[in-house]
């Protein structure tokens, strides 16, 4: 590998998420509020997957 490919950033990327470093941030809640999500799931049309047809892609 040519040495020229060693990298230095012309502009430093921003700080990590929330200033906590370049890794994941834990969720905000310990206990999920499943009721709100259940409401969304109940609204899902039971037949939408049957109607959902796509052409093959790459």
């Amino acid at each position, binding site marked *: 590998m040519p040495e020229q490919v*060693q*990298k230095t950033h012309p502009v430093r990327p921003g700080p990590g998420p929330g200033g906590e470093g370049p890794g994941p941030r834990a969720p905000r*809640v310990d206990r*999920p509020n499943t009721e709100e999500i259940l409401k969304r799931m109940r609204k899902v049309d039971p037949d939408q997957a*049957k109607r959902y047809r796509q052409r*093959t*892609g790459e």
Partner: protein
Amino acid sequence: MDKQRPIPAWPIYFGLETEFGIAVRENAEIDVVEESIHLVRAAAQLGSPNLWDYTREDPHRDARGFRAKELRQDGDEANFFSQDRQRPYSFEEIKSDFVLRNGARFYNDHTHPEYSTPECSTLLELVAQDKAGERILEECARAASRKRNHTVCLYKNNSDFAGHSYGCHENYLIPRMIPWDRIVEGMMAFLVTRQIFGGAGKLGWEKEDQGMVGGFQISQRADFFTELVGIDTMNRRPLINTRDEPHANPKLYRRFHVIVGDSNLSEYATWLKVGTTALVLEALQYDRVPRRFFLADPLYAHRSISRDQTNRWEVDLAHSGATTATELQNDYADWVGRYVDLDHPEKRAVWKSWKETVELLQKGPNALRDRLDWVAKRSLLETFREEQNLSWNDPWLQSVDLEYHLMDRDRGLYYALESGGEISRISREEDIYRAIQQPPNASRAYVRGKCIQKFARDLVNVQWDYIAFRWKGQTYRVELSSAFPGVDLERYCEVIDRAQLVSDMIEELKLEPIGG
């Protein structure tokens, strides 16, 4: 082990290209091509159309050292083009190929809107750019819905449950000096087992043109891979894709093109999937993987891991009995740790998360429902199934599966988890909003994005590795094939920042006309 060699980027650039599913809520019999054209054109305010140069693309070049005479998909493509010729649109109008102000490419790939992130050199930027793509497509769906007077729905998934798959491809620009055979043998078991954290989950089994409800599997794509190594991407898909189209100096670089992964909604899954793959590629510069990593039957293992309802994910090894996908991933992480500089903050963060994720998967996946798509989705489906007293074969559950992927923050189920604070994040909202409007800083995409922002009227052609524009009757080209951080990139970035007119770039970069 040779740690004295210069360590290049990890890799130099990476990017994601994602095909989205498209449907209209009120009408299942829509013309998907027509809808896709209108959808992509809704991005007009964010970019410039019809600049993409197809003459510099050659998907027939094979990393094994030859040029394929034909791809199995050539017939399908010819068929699509033949159908499309009947439409009242030119080729350019059907493609509606936009280069966006953030350096991304957004176009209609036959029937699927496809968003290609700009090249990024950090995972933080890549995740933000991938999320920016989601936001752009969500807004395009709203605009197209208003214009078309119906509800356009976009899905970031990889299958229609009936045997038709579309991809999320990953691209890693890496040194050409890594022998191709070493990449194939080194990446095979890693990619086959990576689905335990990269999978997006799917309810049902499929093969080409067939599908059935029932049975949850962890990968959207595993049903569609039937070859070990090959150049095709639409039919008889291979675990290792050999397309050799680096979009950079081909003597120095190759682009490792991964087609086996799922589209992820989870930022953590994207971050870990791309980050671990990049780490393995970097380690392959120094050594081959041990023979004890080789799988006896990678294709069988790929499907069996995805479908294993016990989550033990046992696989047979070629030379030493059996192991599990978690053990293999753990072994890969330990092996990578011997070669890669883990003082690098982003590499260290990925590596630590890799080890932690594998350990949690061994204890039981549910602890990862805030991080992994397949675990989050399975948890949602279980909750809903119990509440509604449904069997796993109930088609309603497959519809709920589909809704997980909907690009609509008011309706989509992944976004419900996210807005409820139940999902780990990588990006901040301000990172995503910036990525919608601005290219990554440490990338040649910076030059592309800024040219779109400043000189769109002067541009005549764009490719990943060059930009051409016209000035006073002459055509000039800015070559970006060596524009990498630490090489030429800084100079190009400074020039484009200072330039008020295209002529400023011509003067500063000492460009010579290449034609009229």
